[in-house]
């Protein structure tokens, strides 16, 4: 067992090719859309970017979490998490169009002099929300995440070679806790800059956590889909067991509940306070067409997955669980649509760009992810807990 290298199966290579092909085609369509109607293009782009960012950063959060807590579930998905985290440089590239071309289409509320005349910013906002500082802060956020990525991936590689290194194991634990704080801190500020500033006169302190919880859902859902896909063929088919799926399903349920808890807290506080500058957020989002989307999000992002995931049979079912997971990733997109788009239009109807852009960014991202997955063994072969994690306890029936 110890000598096994767990190479990625051919299906990962096929996944990479197909994802890149479909993503590439969708990208061509998107570029056409960007030239024809840059406004709607960047609105869709921001939404898609936030989804893909969530897959990457949620994985960074989960990677640090599993180093901190231990647990067999973490060992089974660790290489997939690392492969998702390693896509961060691509996320930086994805961010560039927003900085260089998209800002004037997205952040008119604090960039456009005419808008500012209608609703002036506070003194602090005037100093904080400027193009220059927006860029400086983005560099800081990405520097923090890239540093965490660099450290955790390098040590993981070192562990593959030297499994006896106790200092290394300690280092994982020592850095994981502060790392999670840094990730959430940077994410909170990033989301204030990138999404909340779409409407600079509205503020919510739980807004960052809302996105972090969403990112954890996206990433955990993606991990479930990926390990089940891998388990169809050697060498992962003998690795993944029902108890692993059960744990991953439990965590997915927990993140869905966490997200709902944050989302509802924000609503409850704003609803109770009933202040004009605060309720604007829900005035635009809970009535008319957007109200319909809100109800859809409540039912299909919370109630349906919540009640399904309560069942132990569902969490242990390798056919059903990945379907719920994929559905949740789709609902993340719908939620981001509901969070961002009402700032631009009262029409709660997606455009063709809302279909093409998530496929374009998602396809390229998935291709890069699959490429990363091929570079290393599918399991952390240097982890001292590996054998215990993939050992078969379940006594089979006769």
């Amino acid at each position, binding site marked *: 067992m110890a000598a096994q290298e767990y190479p990625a199966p051919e299906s990962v290579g096929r996944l990479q090719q197909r994802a890149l092909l479909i993503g590439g085609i969708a990208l061509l369509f998107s570029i056409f859309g960007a030239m024809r109607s840059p406004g709607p293009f960047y609105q869709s782009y921001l939404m898609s970017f936030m989804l893909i960012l969530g897959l990457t950063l949620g994985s960074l959060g989960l990677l640090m979490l599993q180093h901190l807590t231990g647990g067999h579930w973490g060992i089974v998905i660790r290489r997939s998490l690392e492969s998702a985290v390693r896509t961060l440089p691509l996320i930086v590239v994805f961010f560039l169009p927003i900085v260089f071309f998209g800002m004037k289409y997205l952040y008119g509320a604090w960039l456009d002099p005419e808008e500012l005349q209608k609703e002036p910013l506070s003194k602090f906002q005037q100093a904080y929300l400027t193009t220059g500082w927006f860029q400086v802060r983005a560099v800081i956020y990405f520097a923090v995440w890239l540093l965490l990525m660099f450290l955790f991936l390098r040590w993981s590689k070192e562990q593959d070679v030297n499994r006896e290194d106790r200092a290394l194991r300690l280092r994982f634990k020592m850095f994981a806790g502060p790392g999670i704080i840094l990730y959430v801190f940077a994410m909170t500020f990033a989301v204030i800059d990138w999404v909340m500033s779409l409407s600079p006169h509205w503020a919510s302190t739980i807004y960052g956590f809302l996105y972090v919880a969403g990112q954890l859902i996206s990433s955990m859902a993606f991990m479930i889909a990926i390990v089940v896909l891998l388990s169809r063929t050697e060498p992962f088919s003998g690795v993944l067991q029902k108890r692993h799926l059960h744990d991953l399903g439990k965590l997915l349920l927990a993140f869905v509940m966490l997200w709902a808890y944050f989302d*509802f807290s924000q*609503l*409850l506080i704003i*609803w*109770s306070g*009933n202040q004009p500058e605060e309720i604007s957020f829900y005035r635009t989002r809970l009535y008319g067409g957007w109200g319909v989307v809100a109800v859809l999000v409540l039912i299909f992002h919370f109630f349906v997955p919540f009640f399904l995931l*309560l069942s*132990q049979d569902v969490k242990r079912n390798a056919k059903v669980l990945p379907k719920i997971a994929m559905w949740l990733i789709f609902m993340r997109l719908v939620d981001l649509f509901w969070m961002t788009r009402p700032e631009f239009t009262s029409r709660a109807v997606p455009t063709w760009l809302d279909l093409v852009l998530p496929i374009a960014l998602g396809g390229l991202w998935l291709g890069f992810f699959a490429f990363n997955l091929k570079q290393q063994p599918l399991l952390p072969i240097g982890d001292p807990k590996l054998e215990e994690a993939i050992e078969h*306890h*379940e*006594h089979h*029936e*006769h």
Partner: protein
Amino acid sequence: MLHRSHIYGVMGEFSTPDELIHATEKVREAGYRRVNAYSPFPVEGLSEALGLKRNMVAPICLLGGLTGGLGGFFFQYWVAVIAYPQNIAGRPLNSWPAFIPVTFELTILGAALSAVFGMLALNKLPQPHHPVFNVPRFTHASSDRFFVCIEAKDPKFHLEECARLLQQLHAHHIVEVPDD
């Protein structure tokens, strides 16, 4: 036949969880159904080896949660809308968002309490005495030994045959468990 009124069953002692699971499987394969196993810690796969069917704790817990949640919500509804209607800052009487935290808490309370008490009731606990305690070595069941007991209530039960079967499975000590 004579034995049945005097003894509770026959018990064999094992020193590892794997032996325990193996022995339990074999005893059930031999056709015995009134079998129980005792171990100092939860042993994965033992429930399957014992052929335990799914218990009712999960449905009881769900029911308790739903009762707590619905009860919590509608109690607040009754207070705020029917019994003591008050105009608070012009909000509707049925201010459901404000009811959710209590509804949520009571769901958890109902689910947790019904899970604990449902589990105790299904296990027929508290039970101050059990025939297996008559075996002196059974104290090891809470530290370092594993026991399989074939109960006399089993229709196939026969003292010597059961003892022989446990012997074949390499049980360390095979004892008769007196019923009192």
